[in-house]
């Protein structure tokens, strides 16, 4: 039930919804729970709603932390 996935906003519609691209699948979702979302932003979507905006900088920081573990002792 709590399955949620990151999707890219491609269009803002004027009825409080956005069209997102979810790995090539286009879907209309509600923006009722988030403010200030723009085209090109990634949002975390769940049962047809955006739950939160995905923070690209934080994502990069987490990936950098993963990469820094690569040299760990075997």
């Amino acid at each position, binding site marked *: *039930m*709590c399955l949620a*996935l*990151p999707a890219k906003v491609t269009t803002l519609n004027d009825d409080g919804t956005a069209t997102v691209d979810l*790995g090539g699948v286009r879907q209309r979702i509600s923006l009722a729970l988030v403010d200030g979302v723009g085209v090109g932003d990634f949002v975390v979507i769940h049962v047809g709603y955006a739950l939160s905006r995905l923070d690209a900088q934080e994502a990069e920081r987490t990936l950098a932390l993963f990469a820094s573990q690569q040299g760990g002792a075997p």
Partner: protein
Amino acid sequence: MKYVDEFRDGEAAKGLTRALQAAALPHREYHLMEFCGGHTHSLCRYGLLDLLPPNVKMVHGPGCPVCVLPIGRLAQAIRLAFRPGVTLCTYGDLMRVPGKDRLSLLQAKAQGAHVKMVFSSQDALAYARAHPNEEVVFFAIGFETTTPTTCAAVQQAKALGVKNLSFLINHVLTPSAIDAILGSSEARRGQIRVDGFIGPGHVSTIIGLEPYRRFARDAKTPIVIAGFEPLDLLQAMTMLLQQLNDGRAEVENQYTRAVQSEGNRKAQALVEATLELRDEFAWRGLGTLPKSALKLRPELREFDAELRFDLADEHVPDHKACACGDILKGLKRPTDCPIFGTACTPDSPMGSCMVSPEGSCAAYWQYGRHRQEQRRSA
């Protein structure tokens, strides 16, 4: 897919696995509970349980709303779906869950009940508006992740003056379930041991970190909020081990790309304006817990299906062979259940844990771990 594939990278997983193994001190045991059924599935799907050092044990938690919904509440929805003129809109996850006398929503539909599967509360709203002559009921289940999406539809229905839509609210609260596990008699007797929690990532996008702080502070149990990809989980487990090694009990956030410490304030305000606490709610496995679930506020009672259709609570016991209750508490593993994979399979389920997409029995079945465990014990 961006923000998914990078978090499944095999090379990075090797480094993170080495870090996890290095963090596990050989002289001690670590019992970690992943609260969320989505995490259980990731652990099984990506084979992460095989990468764990032998002294790190994962205890699967109750974070699956379909699994914790007691049969009585499902039976209530099924009864409603048989009423003339009523259409019950439900998420697909619930369709095959065995209810009273093992009757599922899917079987009820085959027998003529009006059950419509929807993807979103928005679909239920749109269906009600398009079918003004039907009484449409949205079967609203879920933890805090899903709760605000129901609230958005309630408020829209009110604003649009939709009279033929009501909501059967079964939204439950994560902190209540954590309370129930930490405070259970089995935990006091040492039958359930949880040294730290992998916290639910998507619940936390809504509620933030604050509701967990009392578990760290009072129960001295560390919590790391984690994303759902395999690298997220490997990192979160290492963070938990490090806290335990250092003797710390804090709330840490591994899923920083999606979870802010204050959560989603707009969604919190919407829930606050729409729902209030129930005095108590019966959970499968965890029992009847005080202030653990939500209902519509008095000013929105016109949308409450329980009042509109005068629905009474009904207690229906689980099938006596089914171990779902003990599995949800962390007392048993799916493979401890005598009917796992024999009398209970996804094709012919006896309990919710086998059929919910987030149930731990479903995870063990789907990803073949039951076969591995049998081999190991042979």
